């Protein structure tokens, strides 16, 4: 997370770190005691589920809890070059025990809509700047949803923004997701402090650059796909 702050303990209890051979690769979000949502592109290089693990807590080391991955399901239409359908679900081999520090997030209905300029939060263990290293401590930043009109402008991302994607951040840059945050959550809350997962960190040019906000997989667009794979 570029220009973020270190997250307080238990602040984002649904955040997970997806690791291959115990090395952080991507973020993920807990949606039940056995399922997580992440980005499909996290599994481009490493396809063997048995070498993947998931850890919970605001530090990668020492983790609060660790689980092996039983399997992951990548969206059937995902093609790495196009970046569309950048969503996957991960099933862990044994149930997660909920606590004050580990909880699941709510999923919005497919029909829910979230307006541009809505305040949302991004969290992750990714780099602090482009080319930087992943972090051991979870970081957080507050950003805003950017309208498609703005994001599809030629000097921003033009036609690269497809249905099922949306932009969030600031046109001035600065606050943004970065390498290693992929697959992690973009969340918002209702007036009763119930939190909902509405985006998955997917791609962007560089990190925190002007006119290049983050691009997120739109959870409502894939809500029925998630239900079909996980039953949630």
């Amino acid at each position, binding site marked *: 997370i570029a220009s973020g702050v270190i997250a307080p303990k238990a602040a984002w209890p649904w955040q997970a770190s997806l690791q291959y051979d115990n090395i952080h690769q991507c973020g993920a979000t807990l949606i039940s*005691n056995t399922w997580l949502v992440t980005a499909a592109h996290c599994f481009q290089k490493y396809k063997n589920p048995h070498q993947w693990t998931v850890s919970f807590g605001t530090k990668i080391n020492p983790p609060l809890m660790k689980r092996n991955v039983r399997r992951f399901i990548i969206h059937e239409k995902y093609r790495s070059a196009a970046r569309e359908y950048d969503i996957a679900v991960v099933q862990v081999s044994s149930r997660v025990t909920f606590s004050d520090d580990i909880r*699941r*997030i709510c999923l919005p209905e497919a029909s*829910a809509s979230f307006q541009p300029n809505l305040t949302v939060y991004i969290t992750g263990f990714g780099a602090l700047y482009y080319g930087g290293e992943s972090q051991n401590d979870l970081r957080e930043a507050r950003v805003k949803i950017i309208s498609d009109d703005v994001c599809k402008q030629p000097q921003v991302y033009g036609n690269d923004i497809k249905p099922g994607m949306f932009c969030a951040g600031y046109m001035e840059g600065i606050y943004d997701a970065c390498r290693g945050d992929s697959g992690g959550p973009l969340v918002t809350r*209702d*007036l*009763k*402090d*119930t939190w909902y997962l509405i985006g998955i960190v997917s791609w962007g040019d560089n990190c925190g650059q002007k006119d290049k906000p983050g691009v997120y997989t739109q959870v409502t667009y894939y809500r029925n796909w998630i239900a079909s794979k996980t039953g949630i």
Partner: protein
Amino acid sequence: MYRTVGFGTRSRNLKPWMIAVLIVLSLTVVAVTIGLLVHFLVFDQKKEYYHGSFKILDPQINNNFGQSNTYQLKDLRETTENLVDEIFIDSAWKKNYIKNQVVRLTPEEDGVKVDVIMVFQFPSTEQRAVREKKIQSILNQKIRNLRALPINASSVQVNAMSSSTGELTVQASCGKRVVPLNVNR
């Protein structure tokens, strides 16, 4: 002259340091007693969990423009939690009421079934069954006069939960966390 064992004629006036020790000891005893009373009466209140369920009949949630449209479960959750808050904050138990959490919304033919966990704090361990009835009657009574949501008052059911089950149910529900938001910028 009898040589009975008796008190010697030597004067037994307490020395000043002994008086000081006695005063400190008695103050300590008083402080500990007050502390224990406060602890058990105020702080040692037990959290009690009650499971409530009721049915919202074909809910229409007014969107920002005042038109009623088909509800979003997300909005229904928020409205219901607000409603239960208002009911108990406005009741004789407002000092005992902590929070409520909608743990499940189940769309059914004629509406939506709501499962909610209500959390209270009470000093004594009065009969849970008595409290259960009281909570049910508060809900029943208030729900009848509500316009925010068309709730079928006869569908209201309340059951006491064990603290462990209550705590686990709250932890297992989605989207809630124990930390208030304070992302400083």
